[in-house]
């Protein structure tokens, strides 16, 4: 994991001091809210429906145990005893008081954390695959690149006032776990024919009110050209991106309006000017960063306890079937810790749970924790022989829900329960689906499925890329939920299609139930997944089921 240098520590500490003074001046009236607002947003402080919200960066989702405990300490001391992990691998405190925020940021700075560029029209916190460095399929570890981009983009003076926010994601080149095709810039680790490292670069992807799949700009960009190329993309966007209309200001609209060809031409032209400005210092920085991301020293030990526990304990066996992924070291496993207990709020974790996760990572997990954009916590390196102990520790903390990838492992933005932009709640729908399918005991028959729920068109809950997407809107003074089908956030990127009129808060769960029952009736014996069945059959049979007049329920 990246180790802060004295420069990094000074930078973050200085920012806390500056923000403390800004808060003081806001409270004594020297700064108006109009003057203060951009300053607080630059430091991750929003005002939501009921309170302030502080969004803290977890660059590429990576945390160690000390940082996880610090989040717990902040939530206990200054918030309400829990945190919310977001769909961009960050963490949110939903109840801080303005005067406490400088103290919170100071406490976080002591463990090398901050809230810089988690809001505002700037380059936001960089995301990367949550299985980075552990995945059996990645081409290269995306974290050093993500860290390099973080350093380049932090406080970059030229890109502090972009037309709109800007999101960059990096995937390791195997299974895309970080939705790169729906980021402003998506980077995919790649190798050319000679085996040299580089990137596939896409631009102009995004969700929100105008969802678009990123367009490939370069099939292969040599590693050393990365920062000049990013600089070129950002300069072109900064120059021609629209500032006259907030809804047309994202780079996806710039690329769309100018066309990918013309956008590429401008970027390539600009890139030729940039290259000479980079003298190799960036590559030296990358080499130093890479040294921080060497794989842990994997232990050599028996995995017999794992096999024995699987035979003896059906609950453990069930957990291992859903919540483990293949590690590059065959004696190890990647563990997904679900933050989706049945009927719970996706992404929420209590401070006791955060401390339990920290203890587990420290004792058995090479002190490595990840936040996934699917609002779960990942223990990337667990020796199989330790899995029974890890499972017991998770169970004691209420963290052993065996549902990773299943229907109750859905993602949802905070919605109108917290957010001032929301047009409807989203967590109520998540909770309803989770409870209902748990009652029906059909989770394993349904298998792999991605349901994603947003409480407004801005799509923080990624509804466009859910196999089933649910968008909460307001219609005639009540909450109304619109279903989309067929979305996919992986390398097979697809935008879900709206299926028809929306449903009320009471009707949406039965509608999803009818949809799922139609899938169970239509799926091939081979264990065809929902998304595969949808691709084979198209929307018609599912639409018919959703809008079937007989809204019978299927009691167990």
């Amino acid at each position: 994991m990246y180790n802060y240098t004295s420069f990094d520590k000074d930078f973050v500490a200085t920012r806390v001091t500056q923000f403390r003074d800004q808060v003081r001046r806001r409270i004594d009236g020297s700064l108006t809210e109009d003057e203060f607002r951009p300053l607080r947003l630059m430091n991750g402080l929003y005002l939501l429906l009921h309170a302030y919200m502080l969004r803290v960066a977890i660059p590429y989702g990576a945390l160690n145990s000390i940082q996880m405990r610090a989040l717990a300490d902040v939530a206990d001391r200054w918030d309400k005893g829990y945190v919310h992990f977001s769909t961009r691998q960050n963490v949110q405190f939903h109840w801080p008081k303005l005067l406490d925020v400088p103290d919170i940021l100071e406490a976080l700075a002591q463990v090398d954390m901050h809230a810089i560029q988690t809001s505002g029209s700037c380059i936001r916190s960089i995301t990367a695959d949550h299985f980075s460095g552990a995945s059996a399929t990645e081409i290269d570890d995306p974290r050093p690149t993500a860290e390099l981009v973080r350093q380049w983009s932090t406080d970059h003076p030229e890109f502090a006032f972009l037309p709109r926010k800007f999101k960059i994601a990096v995937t390791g080149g195997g299974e895309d776990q970080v939705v790169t095709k729906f980021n402003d810039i998506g980077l995919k680790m790649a190798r050319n024919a000679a085996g040299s490292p580089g990137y596939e670069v896409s631009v102009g992807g995004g969700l929100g009110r105008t969802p678009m799949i990123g367009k490939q700009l370069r099939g292969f960009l040599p590693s050393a050209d990365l920062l000049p190329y990013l600089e070129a993309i950002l300069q072109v966007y900064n120059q021609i991106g629209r500032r006259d209309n907030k809804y047309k200001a994202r780079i996806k609209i710039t690329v769309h309006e100018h066309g990918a060809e013309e956008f590429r031409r401008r970027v390539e032209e600009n890139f030729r000017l940039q290259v000479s400005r980079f003298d190799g210092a960036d590559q030296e920085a990358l080499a130093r960063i890479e040294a921080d991301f060497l794989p842990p020293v994997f232990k050599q030990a028996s995995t017999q306890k794992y096999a024995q526990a699987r035979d003896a304990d059906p609950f453990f066996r069930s957990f291992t079937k859903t919540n483990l992924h293949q590690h590059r070291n065959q004696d190890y496993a990647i563990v997904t810790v679900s933050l989706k207990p049945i009927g719970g709020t996706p992404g929420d974790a209590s401070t006791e749970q955060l401390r339990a996760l920290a203890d587990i990572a420290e004792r058995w997990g090479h002190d490595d924790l990840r936040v996934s954009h699917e609002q779960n916590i990942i223990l990337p390196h667990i020796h199989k022989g330790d899995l029974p102990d890890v499972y017991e520790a998770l169970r004691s903390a209420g963290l052993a829900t065996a549902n990773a990838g299943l229907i109750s492992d859905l993602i949802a933005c905070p919605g109108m329960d917290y957010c001032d932009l929301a047009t409807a709640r989203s967590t109520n729908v998540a909770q309803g689906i989770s409870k209902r399918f748990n009652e029906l005991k059909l989770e394993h028959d349904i298998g792999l499925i991605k349901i994603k729920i947003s409480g407004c068109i801005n799509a923080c809950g990624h509804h466009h890329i859910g196999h089933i997407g649910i968008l909460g809107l307001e219609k005639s003074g009540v909450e109304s939920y619109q279903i989309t089908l067929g979305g996919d956030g992986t390398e097979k990127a697809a935008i879900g299609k709206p299926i028809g009129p929306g449903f009320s808060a009471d009707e949406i769960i039965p509608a999803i139930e009818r949809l799922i029952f139609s899938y169970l009736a239509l799926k091939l014996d081979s264990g065809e997944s929902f998304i595969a069945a949808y691709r084979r059959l198209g929307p018609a049979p599912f639409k018919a089921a959703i809008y079937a007049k007989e809204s019978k329920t299927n009691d167990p």
Partner: protein
Amino acid sequence: MATIPTIQIITANDLLSGEVVYLAENGEWTIEHAEAISFETELGASSRLDDVMQLDPSVIGAYLVDVSLGEGNAPKPAHFRETFRTTGPSNRFIGKQAATSINGRELQNV
């Protein structure tokens, strides 16, 4: 055709705590929706809102909200968004609905 007059109240968030507050009859900010002062003309409501936004540094993000009048002429939110603001999140009972006091003041409706 006679139109139903729009009744409005003024709401904001407290600068220091972020808490949802309403402008009361006495010109102070209250945490109780039922104590909010109602304006029966749009002009009255918006001119008072202008004053608040220019003169009152203790709150942020003040805006007008449509209400209906319930028992004892106490205002009730017309929109579900504002109903949530009177209680707190519906998925966790830790907002106003769970508090016995806020900013040192006892809550009536607990």
